[in-house]
C-alpha cells in the first residue's frame, strides 16, 4: 500500500494505492495545521511509503513523509494514469492555477503557474461566490444556467470584487454576474494555455474542475480540442503522489 497526500491551501487529500487501483481516499479541510490533519488521516494505516505534495509538503516531510514532490509533478503523474495520451493539464486549486505540458512518457516538459495574486484561482471564485451570496455548489450551477453574459474586466480579486458590487447595484441578476466571473477565469486559463501550447486533449484537474460551469466554459473557449476531467479531479495530486511512492519504493 502506497499513500500520496496533497496538503493544499484549502483541503488535505489522501489517496491510497494498493499497487493496482485506488483503494481508498479522504478529503478534509486544511485547518490551521495541515500536517496534523494529514497525520490523523494516516493513523492506523501501514503504508510501504508516503509521498507528500502541495503547500504543506515540506513540513509534512519533517514529520512523516518518505518523499516529497511538487504539485506539478504529482498532477502530471495523476493525469498520466487517467489519460495516458493527454499531454496538457490545467490544474486550478485553492491558491494557484497551473498549466502543465507533458511529454509522451508522462513527464513534465514545461509549465506555467500564476504569480503572487489570487486571480484565476479557486480562492477567487470563492470570494466572488461569497460576494453574490452563493454557496460554491450553487455558484457553478447558477452560472451554467445563465444564458446572458455580462463582461468582467478585472482579473484582480480586489478590483473584480468592486466590479461585481457595482454590477449588483446596477440591478444585474446575480446569475449573469456569476457567469461573467466564470467566463473571466476561463479566459485566463485559455490564455495561459495559449502561451504554453497544448495538444489535442486537455485534462482539467484540481478542485475547481468539479465546477461544471468552469469545465463547460473552458471547453467552449477551446472548441478545437477535447477537455477531459478525471474522476475525483481534486484527488489528482494525491493520486499522483501515491503512484510516485509506488514507483520509487
Amino acid at each position: 500500500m502506497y499513500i500520496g497526500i496533497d496538503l493544499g491551501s484549502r483541503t488535505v487529500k489522501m489517496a491510497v494505492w494498493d499497487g493496482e487501483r485506488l483503494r481508498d481516499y479522504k478529503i478534509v479541510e486544511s485547518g490551521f495545521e495541515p500536517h496534523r490533519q494529514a497525520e490523523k488521516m494516516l493513523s492506523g494505516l501501514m503504508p510501504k511509503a508516503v509521498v507528500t505534495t502541495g503547500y504543506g509538503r515540506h513540513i509534512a516531510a519533517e514529520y512523516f513523509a518518505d518523499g516529497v514532490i511538487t504539485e506539478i509533478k504529482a498532477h502530471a503523474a495523476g493525469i498520466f494514469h487517467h489519460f495516458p495520451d493527454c499531454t496538457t493539464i490545467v490544474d486550478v486549486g485553492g491558491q494557484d492555477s497551473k498549466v502543465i505540458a507533458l511529454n509522451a512518457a508522462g513527464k513534465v516538459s514545461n509549465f506555467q503557474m500564476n504569480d503572487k495574486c489570487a486571480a484565476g484561482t479557486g480562492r477567487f471564485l470563492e470570494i466572488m461566490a461569497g460576494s453574490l451570496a452563493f454557496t460554491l455548489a450553487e455558484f457553478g450551477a447558477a452560472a451554467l444556467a445563465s444564458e446572458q453574459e455580462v463582461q468582467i474586466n478585472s482579473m484582480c480579486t480586489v478590483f473584480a470584487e468592486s466590479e461585481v458590487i457595482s454590477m449588483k447595484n446596477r440591478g444585474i441578476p446575480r446569475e449573469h454576474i456569476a457567469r461573467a466571473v466564470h467566463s473571466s477565469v476561463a479566459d485566463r486559463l485559455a490564455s495561459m494555455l495559449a502561451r504554453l501550447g497544448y495538444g489535442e486533449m486537455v485534462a482539467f484537474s484540481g478542485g475547481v474542475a468539479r465546477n461544471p460551469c468552469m469545465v463547460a466554459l473552458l471547453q467552449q473557449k477551446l472548441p478545437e480540442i477535447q477537455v477531459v476531467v478525471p474522476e475525483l479531479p481534486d484527488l489528482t495530486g494525491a493520486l499522483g503522489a501515491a503512484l510516485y511512492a509506488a514507483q520509487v519504493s
Partner: protein
Amino acid sequence: MSSFEIKPYPEMWKALDMDVPRFDKMRLMMGDMYAKAYLSQPNRPDGMAYFDNMIAEIHGGRVKELLAAKTEGRPVIGTFCVYIPEEIVLAAGGICVGLCGGSQGSVPDAEKILPRNICPMVKSAFGFKAARICPYFQAVDFVYGETTCDAKKKTWEILDKLVPTYVMEIPQCKNPRDIALWNEEVKDFKAKVEEVAGKTISETDLAAAIKVMNNKRRALQRLNSLRHHNPTPISGKDGLLIEQIAFYDEPVRFTEKVNDLCDELEVRIKNEVAVPATGATRIMVAGTPMALPNWKIHTLVEGAGAVIVNEESCIGTRYFKDLVDETVTGMDNMLAALTDRYKEIDCSCFTPNNERITQVIKEFRDSGAQGIINYSLQFCHTYNIEEIRIRQACEAESIPYMFIESDYSPEDIGQLQTRVEAFLELIGE
C-alpha cells in the same frame, strides 16, 4: 552561527540626520536575515570572512571611510546603474557608491509619494532617502542618476528635492549619433565631478583609475570563471554577495580580497571540494539586478539543493564583462575609450539589443549550467518584454528555462518555491 550582528554606530547615524530608532530595527532584522541565509551554509570558503565583515560594517566602517574622504575634500557620489563611468570619479580622488534599493522595508515610505505600480528597486531606493534610513544616501555629496528607465528618470525629479540629483542621459539606441551624444555626456560628467572635487583630472589620474577598475573587473571575471567549474567551489549566494559588495567597497582592497578568495577556490578545485555537493543541479540566473539584501531567488534555488553558478545581470556579469582599453592616450581619446566600454553593456533599455540574447546563451554555455531562471523585477517593462526573446532563444537551443517576475515582498515565496522545485524536477527528468 546565529551570533551575527551588523555593527551599530548610533552617534554617526545621528550626525547623518538618520531616523536612528527605525534604522536600528532594520539593522537587527538584516543581521538575522544574513545569519539565516549566509552563516548557515556549510563549507564556506575562509575568504568569505572578509565579505561577512563588509556586511557587519556595511552601516559603519565603510560609511566612516566615506565621511573621512569627504573631510579631505574628496567627492562621494551615489549611483544606481552600471552605466555611470566610475573611472572618472576615482580619477578625481572620489568614491562611487551604489545606493540602497534592495529591500521591502522602505517601499511603504516611497508609496506615500510615488505611484505603487512602478519598479520595486526605484521605490525601495526612494523610500530609503525619504525615510532617512540609508547612511550612504545621507553621506553622499550628490546622486548621479541616468535615463535607463522611465521610473528612474521621473523619480530623479522628485528625489532632487531630497538630495541633489544629476542626470546623465543614456541613449536608447547605439547608432553613431547616439554614441556621439553619449561621449558628450561622459565629458559633462567629468566636468561635474571636477567641479565638485575642485580639481582637474589629468591623463595620468584617469589612466590610473582605468587600471584600478579594470583590475577589479578582472578579479570578478576570475571569480565568475571559477564558479563555472563543475563541481563549483562556492555557493551562488556567496557569489552574488561579492557582486553586491562590489558596489560599495573600496575598489583596490576589494580586488585584492576577491583575488585572495580566488586563490583559495583554485585550491578547493584541486582538492575537489564542492559546494553545495557534487551533482547539485547547476542554474544560471539572467535578468534584472538583485540589489543588497535581495537574496530571494538564490535562497529558494539553493534551499532546494541546486546551485547558482552565474548571474547575467547588472549585479553580475554586466558589471564586469567588459574592460576599458588601457593603451589609449590623450584625454579625448581616453573619454572615447570609456564611452566605448560602457556602450558594450547590454541593458534591455536599448533597442535593438541582440547582443544580450547572444550573451545569455554564451554565459549559459560557459557556466556549464543546466537551466536558466530569467528574473525580472515587477514593472520592469524592458526586461519583462525582452523575456520573450530570451525564452525563444532558449527554446531554440533546447535550454530548460523558467521566467520569474517578482518584487521584494515575501508574499509569493510559496508559489515561487513550488515553481523552482518543479523546474528542478523537470531538469532532473
